[in-house]
């Protein structure tokens, strides 16, 4: 009951805000009798986008209301049309598609909408499945073996493993993936009774890494082996962090370095120091500009999405698994479209090309 009241209150506030905003912001035109009839198509679109959501029905209301109330109010305020008329701004009366195609809506707009809705639908479906505990197949990547081998080697040599979770904030999806992998890595390390150093560039990431590693050691059954002082905050600045991490490599000589997360210009400096140290190096990032340097200087590199796939495989986090699954399905669809489209195009049929076109043919 309370939740409902709050929701209603929230809606009310929003409605009010949007109303005022719409009314005042709209620069009235003299003739807009057609607007009322067109309103429906606008809110259709809104509710279409929200179809996937359980809360969809009460939320499509404000946009519907705003559209109709707005047009009513606007008629009343007619008169202060300014600036734009000698400006090139042609006010579009179109409710769907691009602004200047009065002749029709290009197919691309429908394809785009369909793509968004399909991705959303698949994602929600897979999230439900994952939450229900259904096993979903993700292939085991060689990168996982590489990480385990690296930890094994460090254990044999009696030297630590260095883990660097990138230099971006915690919100970044790559950092999140890295933290999930760190959980698994720390568990394996605890089981092998090896040492782990984590070197962080963001204070909050250090805190989370601390939690994650603590949990990993606990799950492995060695909570006493966990040493919080080995989860280190080096420096918040990029190059200072880089110099500090290099220092760790030179002094403590880790046998294995794992760089997973979002890296920028420091990637090659870290990888070089690690190489000279004769460490096994495993890297992974979705930052395309830094991947070349990792590939050239590290023993194994997770490229782009492989990073997310490994974290989904290891953590089984429903968010990652569902995203991965949804995009897998769409990729197959896109590959099919590409092959069929090329064949069609080569025979002079532009159907597929038009389907993905945001302009009408001939524009």
């Amino acid at each position, binding site marked *: 009951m309370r939740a409902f009241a709050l929701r209603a209150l929230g*809606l009310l506030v929003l409605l009010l805000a949007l109303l005022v905003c719409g009314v005042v912001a709209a620069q009235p035109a003299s003739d807009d009798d057609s607007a009322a009839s067109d309103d429906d198509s606008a809110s259709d679109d809104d509710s279409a986008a929200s179809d996937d959501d359980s809360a969809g029905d009460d*939320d499509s209301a404000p*946009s519907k209301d705003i559209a109709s109330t707005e047009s009513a109010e606007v008629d009343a305020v007619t008169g202060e049309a300014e600036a734009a008329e000698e400006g090139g701004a042609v006010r579009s009366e179109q409710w769907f598609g691009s602004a200047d195609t009065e002749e029709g809506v290009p197919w691309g707009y429908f394809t785009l909408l369909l793509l968004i809705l399909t*991705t*959303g639908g698949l994602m929600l479906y897979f999230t439900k499945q994952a939450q229900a505990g259904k096993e979903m197949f993700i292939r085991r990547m060689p990168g996982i073996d590489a990480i385990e081998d690296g930890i094994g080697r460090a254990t044999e040599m009696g030297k630590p493993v260095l883990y660097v979770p990138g230099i971006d904030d915690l*919100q970044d999806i790559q950092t999140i993936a890295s933290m999930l992998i760190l959980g698994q890595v720390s568990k394996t390390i605890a089981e092998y009774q090896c040492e782990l150093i984590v070197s962080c560039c963001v204070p909050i990431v250090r805190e989370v890494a601390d939690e994650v590693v603590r949990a990993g050691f606990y799950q492995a059954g060695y909570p006493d082996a966990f040493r919080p002082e080995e989860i280190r905050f080096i420096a918040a600045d990029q190059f200072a962090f880089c110099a500090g991490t290099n220092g760790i490599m030179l002094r403590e000589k880790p046998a294995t370095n794992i760089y997973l997360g979002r890296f920028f210009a420091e990637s090659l400096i870290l990888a070089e120091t690690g*190489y*000279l140290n004769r460490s096994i190096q495993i890297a992974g990032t979705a930052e395309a500009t830094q991947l070349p340097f990792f590939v050239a200087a590290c023993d194994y590199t997770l490229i782009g999405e492989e990073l997310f796939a490994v974290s989904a495989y290891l953590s089984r986090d429903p968010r990652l698994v569902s*995203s991965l699954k949804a995009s897998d399905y769409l*990729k197959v669809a896109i590959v099919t479209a590409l092959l069929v489209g090329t064949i069609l195009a080569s025979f002079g049929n532009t159907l597929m090309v038009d389907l993905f076109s945001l302009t009408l043919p001939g524009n």
Partner: protein
Amino acid sequence: MKRTLPILITFVIGVIMVGEFFIPHWRYRALTGELLEWGIILTAGAFILGLVNLIQVHLPTVVERGTDWGYKAVLLVSLAVTLAMGFSNGKQRLDSGMEVSFSYKWIFDYVYVPLSATMFALLAFYIASAGFRAFRARNAEATLLLVAAALVMFASVPIGEGVPVIGEYLVALKDWTLDVPNNAARRAIFIGAALGAISTGLRVILGLERSHLGGD
């Protein structure tokens, strides 16, 4: 209230913004235009919030003479001086001739420009060193990568272009690498990234992703 309202706002604003792409009607644009305006002001506000945070973090260290307080004092003092000069120069701050007196523009020209420009020039040196000591053709993939890199470096500059007989073909091969395999690989990465962005965006809008709202 603390969770429901933000989630609701996220949903409504998110859906309206998705609609911006599909609905070109001027009424709808008036609405989204206003919301964009607010968004711009709020992003600017977030920058100022970062500034306040920075001062909150560094000022106590300086006052209590904590570790590295000297450097932090440099940061705060230079910040304060820049702000003071900026506000006192006002609208004329960018006009030509301003740099001959101690002003905002002087600070920019003689302090910010050299610092900012040199920061990334450092990497030229590091790439040289890493190229010599760490970038190895350890397997087929890395070999291909290094060969392509050498080709691009060689054929992009006049020395490589000017090599008799093969120079022309090297340039053609470089262009091919950029236009065909590079294009294919980038597009694959783009498509993957776009699919990821769609699902992340939808999760945020539908309220399934709440990390930005803080812990419970």
